[in-house]
C-alpha cells in the first residue's frame, strides 16, 4: 500500500472520529509539504547554494514563501470550517511503542504555521539585504532554513517523539546560528550556552514524555490527551509529574526564570536570527507545548499550573526590570521578549489558554518588527549600543516610524495589537482571582512602556553620537518592516471581546476540547488600569530621556540605589551558574573524579598491595625459608621479574589497576551477601 492510499484511508477514518470539524481536504492531507520543503531547501542550499548569485538565499526565501502561502491557505480553511486532521506513519517499533512521523492540522497548529511562515518569509527576505557581504552567507541560509524547518517539524508533531526531535533540531540550529560569527570567541560561547541550557531543560521534556506515554502505551499526543479527558488508564497517577516535567522543558526553550540566562547572550547571533528566534521560532516552542498539552493542564494536572503561573509571573517582572538597564539595544529587546514570554506562560498557568496564545500571536508581529528595526539601526551605525546612537529619526524615517508603531504595540496602547492581548491576559488574572499576579502584571506593563520609551528616545531623539553618517536601509529590508508594522497595528483586532472573537474560535478547533472561560465584554476597570500604567510608563520615559536633548545619555546613568547593581549583574544568576554549577563540574568535580581515579583507588590498592607484600614476606620468611618446594620459588621469582620490568616501563599502575578490578568484584560480592 503506498503512502497516498494511506493518506486517503486515514482521512476517511479521521472524518469518522471528528464529525463537528472539517477534515481540511487535500490541503490538510498534503500538509507534510510544510515540513519537507524546508528540509529539501536545506539540502539544496548546502549542495548548490554557493553556485547561485545570492549564495543560496533565494532558495531559502522561496521555501519560506511556499510555507507562508500554504500555511495561509490552511489558516483560511480553518477559519471557514474549523479543521481537525491528524495523520501518522509508523517509522519503527520500539518494544510496544510505535515510533511515528506525522502531521497535525488543527486550530493551534495552523495558527503556528501561519505565524512561522509569515515571519520567516519576511525575515528571510530582510536577511537577503542584511547578510549581504557576510563571510559565509550560504552556511547562514542553510542553518536558517534548518531552524525554521525544525520548528515546523515540532509544531506539526502528532506525537511526543517527533516533537522532541524537532525540539532538539531547533536547539542545534540555534547553536549554529548564534555562533555564526564564530571568529569572535564570545559568540561561539554564547551558542554553546544556549545549547547547554536548553539541553538541561530537555531532560525534563524527555522524561516527562516517557512518564506520560508509558501508562497510555502510546507517544501520540492525541492518545495521551484522550486518556486524560476520558480519565482512562493509569494516567491520573502520573499526570502531575508528567505535566511538571514537560513544563521544565518548556522553561528552557521559552526562557523562563531561572533558565532564561541563555536568551540575552543569544543576541550574539546576526539580528535576523534574533528576530526569528524571538518572534516565531524557538522561544514560542515552550508556550506551544503548553498549548498543545493544554487539556492535561486544564483539569487533571491543574496543580501543575501553580508552578507555571508562579514562574511566569516572576519571569515577566524580573526580565522587564533587566530591560531597563541595558545599553545594547538588542539586549533591551531580548529581556523584553523574556518578560512577554512570562506573560504568556503566566496566562497559561492562570487557565487562559486563548489569552496566552493570543499574546504569542500579536507578540510575533511587533517583536519581529522591533528586532528588524534594531537590525536596521545597527546595520547603519555599526554598533549595538544606544550610547552610540541618538537622533536617528531624521536619517532613518522608515525605521523610526515602524519602530514607534512596534513600541506602542508592545507597550499596549489602544488600539494596537499588544493592547488587546495584554488586556486579555490581565483580565484573565482578574477573573481567576489572582490579584497579586494582576498587580505584578500591571507593574510589568508600566515597566514595559518605560523601557521601550527609553529605547526610542535614546535611539531616535537627541543628537547622534556614533561615527559616520547613518543612512536608511535598502528597500529589501524596510519593506518587511512596513508589512510587520501594519500587522502590529491591526493584528489584535481579531479578538475583541464582545465584538469579534475569531481568534478564540480558530485556536479552539482541536480534537480534545476543554472548558475555558471567555469574557463577554471588556473588563473595563482592568482596561483602565492597564492603559494608565502604559501611559505613565511612556510619560516617565519622556521626562527622563526626552526633555533635555543634551543630557539625554547622561540621564541614562541615573542609578536606582540597591536595585541597580542587582540588575546590572542580572541578579547574579550567571555568576551563580558559572561558579555554582559549571565551574565545579568542569573543575573540582571532574578533577576530583580524575584524582579519585588515580589516587584514592590507588591508595586503597596500595594498601591492599602493602598487606599482600607483608603477607608475602611472611610467606617467604616463615614458609618458604622452611623449605617448601622450589617450583613455588621459581614462580615467585618470575613474577617479581615481570613486576620489575613493568616498573621500568613506568607502568607501575598496572598492579593497582588489577587490584581495583579485584576489589571491585569483591566489593560487589560482599555487598550482595551482606545486603542482598
Amino acid at each position, binding site marked *: 500500500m503506498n503512502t497516498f492510499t494511506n493518506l486517503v484511508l486515514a482521512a476517511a477514518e479521521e472524518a469518522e472520529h471528528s464529525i463537528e470539524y472539517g477534515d481540511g481536504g487535500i490541503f490538510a492531507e498534503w500538509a507534510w509539504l510544510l515540513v519537507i520543503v524546508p528540509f529539501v531547501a536545506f539540502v539544496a542550499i548546502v549542495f548548490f547554494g554557493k553556485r547561485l548569485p545570492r549564495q543560496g538565499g533565494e532558495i531559502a526565501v522561496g521555501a519560506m514563501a511556499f510555507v507562508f502561502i500554504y500555511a495561509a491557505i490552511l489558516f483560511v480553511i480553518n477559519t471557514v470550517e474549523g479543521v481537525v486532521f491528524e495523520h501518522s506513519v509508523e*517509522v*519503527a*517499533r*520500539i*518494544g*510496544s*511503542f510505535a*515510533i511515528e512521523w506525522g502531521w497535525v492540522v488543527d486550530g493551534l497548529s495552523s495558527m503556528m504555521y501561519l505565524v512561522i511562515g509569515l515571519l520567516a518569509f519576511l525575515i528571510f527576505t530582510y536577511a537577503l539585504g542584511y547578510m549581504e557581504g557576510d563571510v559565509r552567507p550560504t552556511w547562514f541560509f542553510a542553518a536558517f532554513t534548518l531552524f525554521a524547518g525544525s520548528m515546523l517539524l515540532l509544531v506539526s508533531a502528532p506525537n511526543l*517523539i517527533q516533537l*522532541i*526531535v524537532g525540539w*532538539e*533540531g531547533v536547539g*542545534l540550529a540555534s*547553536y549554529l546560528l548564534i*555562533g555564526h560569527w*564564530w*571568529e569572535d570567541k564570545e559568540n*561561539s560561547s554564547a551558542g*554553546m550556552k544556549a*545549547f*547547554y541550557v536548553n*539541553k*538541561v531543560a*530537555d*531532560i525534563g521534556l*524527555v*522524561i516527562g514524555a*516517557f*512518564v506520560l506515554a*508509558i501508562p497510555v502505551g502510546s507517544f501520540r499526543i492525541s492518545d495521551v490527551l484522550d486518556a486524560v479527558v476520558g480519565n482512562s488508564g493509569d494516567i491520573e497517577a502520573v499526570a502531575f509529574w508528567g505535566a511538571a516535567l514537560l513544563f521544565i522543558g518548556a522553561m528552557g526553550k521559552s526562557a523562563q526564570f531561572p533558565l532564561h540566562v541563555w536568551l540575552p547572550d543569544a543576541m550574539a547571533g546576526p539580528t535576523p536570527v534574533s528576530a526569528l528566534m524571538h518572534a516565531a521560532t524557538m522561544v514560542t516552542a515552550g508556550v506551544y507545548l503548553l498549548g498543545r498539552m493544554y487539556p492535561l493542564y486544564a483539569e487533571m494536572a491543574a496543580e501543575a499550573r501553580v508552578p507555571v503561573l508562579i514562574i511566569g509571573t516572576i519571569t515577566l517582572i524580573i526580565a522587564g526590570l533587566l530591560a531597563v538597564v541595558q545599553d545594547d539595544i538588542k539586549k533591551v529587546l531580548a529581556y523584553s521578549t523574556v518578560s512577554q514570554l512570562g506573560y504568556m506562560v503566566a496566562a497559561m498557568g492562570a487557565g487562559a489558554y486563548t489569552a496566552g496564545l493570543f499574546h504569542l500571536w500579536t507578540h510575533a508581529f511587533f517583536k519581529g518588527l522591533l528586532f528588524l528595526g534594531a537590525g536596521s539601526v545597527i546595520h547603519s551605525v555599526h554598533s549595538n549600543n544606544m550610547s552610540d546612537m541618538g537622533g536617528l529619526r531624521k536619517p532613518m524615517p522608515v525605521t523610526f516610524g515602524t519602530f514607534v508603531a512596534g513600541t506602542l504595540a508592545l507597550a499596549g496602547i489602544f488600539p494596537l495589537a499588544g493592547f488587546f492581548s495584554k488586556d486579555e491576559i490581565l483580565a484573565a488574572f482578574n477573573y481567576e482571582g489572582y490579584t497579586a499576579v494582576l498587580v505584578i502584571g500591571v507593574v510589568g506593563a508600566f515597566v514595559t512602556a518605560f523601557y521601550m520609551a527609553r529605547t526610542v528616545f535614546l535611539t531616535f531623539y537627541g543628537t547622534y553620537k556614533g561615527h559616520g553618517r547613518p543612512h536608511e536601509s535598502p528597500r529589501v529590508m524596510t519593506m518587511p518592516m512596513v508589512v510587520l508594522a501594519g500587522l502590529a497595528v491591526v493584528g489584535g483586532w481579531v479578538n475583541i471581546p464582545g465584538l469579534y472573537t475569531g481568534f478564540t474560535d480558530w485556536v479552539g478547533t482541536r480534537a480534545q476540547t476543554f472548558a475555558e472561560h471567555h469574557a463577554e465584554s471588556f473588563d473595563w476597570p482592568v482596561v483602565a488600569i492597564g492603559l494608565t500604567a502604559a501611559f505613565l510608563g511612556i510619560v516617565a520615559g519622556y521626562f527622563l530621556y526626552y526633555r533635555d536633548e543634551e543630557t539625554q545619555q547622561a540621564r541614562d546613568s541615573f542609578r536606582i540605589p540597591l536595585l541597580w547593581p542587582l540588575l546590572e549583574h542580572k541578579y547574579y544568576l550567571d555568576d551563580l551558574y558559572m561558579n555554582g554549577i559549571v565551574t565545579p*563540574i*568542569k573543575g573540582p*568535580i*571532574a*578533577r576530583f*573524579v*580524575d584524582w579519585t*581515579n588515580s589516587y584514592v*583507588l590507588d591508595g586503597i590498592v596500595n594498601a591492599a598491595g602493602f598487606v599482600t607484600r607483608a603477607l608475602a614476606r611472611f610467606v617467604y620468611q616463615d614458609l618458604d625459608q622452611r623449605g617448601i618446594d622450589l617450583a613455588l620459588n621459581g614462580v615467585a621469582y618470575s613474577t617479581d621479574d615481570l613486576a620489575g620490568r*613493568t616498573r621500568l*616501563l*613506568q*607502568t607501575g*599502575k*598496572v598492579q593497582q*589497576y*588489577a587490584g*581495583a*578490578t*579485584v*576489589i*571491585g*568484584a569483591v566489593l*560487589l*560480592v560482599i555487598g*550482595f*551477601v551482606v545486603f*542482598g
Partner: protein
Amino acid sequence: MAPDIDYLALAPEITLAVTAVVVLLLDLFLPRRQKYWTAIVAVLGVSFAALPLIALAVSDVGDRAMLGGSFVVDDFALVLKGLFVIAGYLVLLMSVGYVESDRYYQGEYYFLLLMSILGSMVLASSRDLITLFIAVELVSQPMYLLAGWRKGDLRSNEASLKYFLLGVLASALLLYGMSFVYGLTGELTFAGIAAEGAGKAGEPAFIMAILFIIAGFGFKVSAVPFHFWAPDTYEGAPTPVAAYLSVSSKAAGFVALLVVLYSAFPDASGVWGPAVWILAALSMTLANLTALRQTNIVRLLAYSSVAQAGFMLVPFAAAATTDAVGLGEAFAATVTYIVIYAFMNLGAFAVVIAGARKTGTGDIEGWGGLGSYAPALGALAAVFFFSLAGIPPLAGWIAKLVMFGAAMGAGSPWMIALAVIAAINAVIALVYYARVVKTIWMDPVPATAPEEEVRTASVAGSLGLAIGLSAAVVVVAGFFPSLVTFFSDATKVLAGG
C-alpha cells in the same frame, strides 16, 4: 562416531579460518613490496564470510543446533555475526593505509585481526560455558599482541602489557566464577544451568559466581571500575586496533553478557540486575566526568566508550524488575544500542585516523580549524560526534531513545532514577562531544599545524570508504530506525521474549 556437523551453519567461521591461514601463508611467500595482497585477501575473506550468513538468514530451517546444543545458529547469533563481520570489515578498511605506512608485519597483523573476528563469530553461537570461554579468549588473545604492534613506541608496549596483564586477571575471575557455576549446577550448557540454577538464586556461592562472571565481562566491555586499562591501551595501541577494541571487542563482551545473563541466569535477574545497575550508573557518571578533562582525542573517545558502555548496561538493570515481555525488550534495547554504537564509534575512530594524519597530532587543540581546510571530514566528524551525543535525527538518538524506553518502561523507582542519571549524563557528554566539533569548526588553525600539503592531502581510499559507510548507516538509520530495530527485535528469541 563423528558428530553431526551442519557445514552451512559453520560456513562463516570456516571461511574466516581459511582466509586467516591463507593470509599467513601468503605472507610467507610474497615479496616485501607485494605484502598489500594480504590486506586484499583479508578484506575479500571477510566479505565472503557474509554470504553464508545471508544464506542462513533466508533459509527456513530455523535454529540449527549442533554439538549437543553447545553451538547454536539462531536469529540472535546471525544478527550479531553480521554485526561482527561488518565491523571487522570496516576495521580492516581503516587498517589498510595505517599498517602499510608502518611497513612491517602486515601478514601477521591481518592474521591476528581475522582470528579475533573468528572468535567473536564463535562467541555469538556458543551456548555453553567452555565454548564461550574459548571464544572470548580467541577474541582477546590476538588483541594483546596487536595493541603492542607499534613496537618502537614505548606507549604501545605499555598498552599491550597493561591490557594483557589485566585481561588475564579478568579471564581468571571469569573462569573462577564459571567453575563455581559448574560446581553448583553440574551443568555446562546454559539451558542446563538455567534449569538447575532456578532454585539457587539466593545461595551466596551462586551469587558470587554470577558476580565474578559479571566482573570478568565487565573488563571486556570496560565498565567502571573495570575500565582502567581502556584509556592507556587505546592511546598506545595503533588507532585501528583501538577502534576494534572499542567496538568489536566491547560488543563481544556484551554478547557474552547477554547470552550468559539472559539465557543461563534468567531466574537470578534479582542478583545481576542491581549489580549491573551499579556498574551502569558508575560507568556513565565517572567516565563522562573524566572525559570532560581529556585533551587527547583518543583518550576522550576511550572515556566516551566507557560511558557508552554504561548506557548499554542500563537496559540490563531494567531486566530485574520486569516480566518476560519487559525482559525481551530490555534485551532488544541493548542489542539496538550496540549495533548503532558500533557504526558511530567506528566512524568516529576513522575520522580520528584521517584527522590525525592531517593535523599531525592527537591533541584536540591541534585540530582547530580542521573544518576550514577539510570541510567534508569536519562535517563527518560532526555527524559522528553528534550521533554519539544522541542528537536527532542521527542514529545515536534512536539508541538513547530505546535505552530510555527500556528504563522507564520497567516502572520501578530505581529504574526511573537510573533513567534520570542517564539523562543528566547525556547532557554532560554533550559538552565534550560538542567541544570537539566546536574546535574543528570554530577555532582558528593553530600555529603548530603542518604545512598546506599535509593538511589538504586526500584521505586514503579505503579509509574514506570506511568513513562513508559508517556515516551512511548513522544518517539513514536515524531516519529509518526500523532498519536497526528489525534486527534487534529478531534477537529477542534468546531472552524468551
